[in-house]
């Protein structure tokens, strides 16, 4: 492609979620990994190893900064201190991409360390759009917003999640981060068709795709309940859903997320190779 993708400066190849223990392996032989994603909140100290590693990595790799704590869906205003920290990080690092979640995590200045769900209503849409505007203004760049994994639904929701995300993108100009594992989890948990979700998703706005592992559980009634654990290999039906998605979207930067029971580098690199293989089958 001659033109850069409008929603991502990341290469349309495999990336992985970075952990400090991978530093040496990545610097020696990163193949097939082409880019790295970091969690913004882990690089907000004043110095030391985390920032030193990140400076080294950013000289060789495109970096995606993935925020997990801004609480874009929060009922209250965004935390100005946290906006300032994100601005500082994006300022010195100049990452290829910045992304956050359609979720809330902070209320009354208490941070709950989880991505909590939102009702899809006109009022939520206005509030989230305002928060995206504020963030994009603060960091001086366009963000990608990620679809959540859902365990329950709000009776008061009046919009489909896909329509909600489309409208947010249209109002704010933000791109979208499509987490295919989250789509599979939400569809299973809420009795929806994951392919219909992909069909309804505005794939032209997708600047990055996430893949991760999930755990299988059951609810009180014995219905399957998938948990977004990021603690194992990507499940086979999620790879299938990825193929379905890539056939429609074309190649995209593809991230393997593995955040719990973190594997050794060869195991993670093998997952990234699977992502590379999936991309190789996609018509450009």
């Amino acid at each position: 492609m001659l033109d850069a993708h409008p929603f991502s400066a990341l290469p349309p190849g495999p990336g992985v979620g970075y952990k400090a223990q991978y530093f040496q392996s990545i610097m020696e032989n990163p193949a097939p990994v082409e880019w790295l994603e970091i969690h913004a909140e882990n690089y907000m100290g004043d110095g030391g190893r985390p920032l030193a590693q990140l400076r080294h990595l950013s000289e060789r790799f495109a970096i995606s900064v993935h925020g997990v704590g801004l609480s874009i869906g929060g009922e209250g205003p965004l935390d100005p201190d946290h906006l300032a920290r994100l601005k500082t990080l994006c300022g010195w690092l100049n990452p290829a991409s910045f992304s956050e979640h359609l979720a809330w995590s902070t209320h009354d200045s208490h941070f709950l360390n989880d991505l909590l769900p939102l009702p899809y209503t006109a009022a939520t849409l206005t509030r989230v759009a305002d928060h995206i505007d504020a963030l994009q203004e603060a960091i001086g760049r366009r963000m990608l917003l990620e679809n959540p994994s859902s365990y329950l639904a709000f009776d008061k929701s009046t919009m489909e999640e896909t329509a909600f995300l489309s409208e947010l993108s249209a109002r704010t100009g933000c791109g979208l981060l499509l987490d295919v594992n989250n789509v599979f989890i939400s569809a299973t948990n809420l009795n929806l068709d994951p392919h219909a979700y992909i069909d309804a998703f505005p794939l032209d706005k997708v600047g990055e795709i996430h893949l991760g592992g999930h755990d299988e559980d059951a609810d009180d009634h014995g219905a399957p309940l998938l948990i977004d654990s990021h603690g194992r290999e990507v499940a086979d039906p999620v790879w299938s859903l990825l193929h379905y998605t890539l056939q429609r979207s074309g190649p995209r930067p593809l991230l393997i997320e593995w955040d719990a029971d973190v594997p050794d580098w060869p195991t993670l690199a093998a997952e990234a190779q699977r992502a590379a293989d999936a991309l190789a089958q996609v018509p450009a």
Partner: protein
Amino acid sequence: MSVSQDTFRAALLDSARPVPEGLSDGHGRPAGARFSVYRNNVAVSLTEALEVSFPAIRKLIGDENFRGLMGIFLRQHPPTAPMISQYGAALPGFLEGFEPLAHLGYLPDVARLEQALRESYHAADAVAIDPAELQNLPPDALMGATLTLAPTLRLIRSRWPVHEIWAYNMEDGAPKPSGNAQNVLVTRPEFDPIATPLAPGGGTFIAALADGQTFGTAFEVATQATKGGGEFDLTPTLSALIAGRAIIQIRPGDSP
């Protein structure tokens, strides 16, 4: 009106509260125990963060007690910022006031030492002085000098053998704690903080330097603090500061 985030948060942190109304399971039934996924994520992720940050406390009271204790702590002191690797600064104070563990009086200071190590890990980088700068200073100029200490430096002053207790739980082959009070210096020579027990007077000496007192005044107050032990032995404390790359500037005093 949909379930507010206030209601949602209250039910997340208190399992005795009912699951908020207006949430369903996608099969036309109330969400019920599905809400527990969020309750579980919050409690487990915060407890795991505290396990990473306070491994010696965990070892001292055991896994099960630690999880129970952190369950109480995280509900009384939820994080106030999203940098989860920095969560838990309130733990020493919480332990101080936690009556059921009052018989383990050293726990708060062990937690302070672990917190100091973590703060040092994330503290700003700074370039240490060349030790020759200190050695080459004429004695009078040295005594009148003030030192700037590194942002990575922390000092723990304890009436417990806090370094011995910490080391006994964290290092293979460390001797059993003896029982003498210890002051501990935390420094970060490069990226990994180290904890060094200080000789008598060492804590007073470093605290005076950090307070902006001259080298000579710090030496005097350290000698006074070394009750009956004779003159303050500067060598081990100064060596620990130098080895820890903890002195980043010397401003020589005016010669008298």
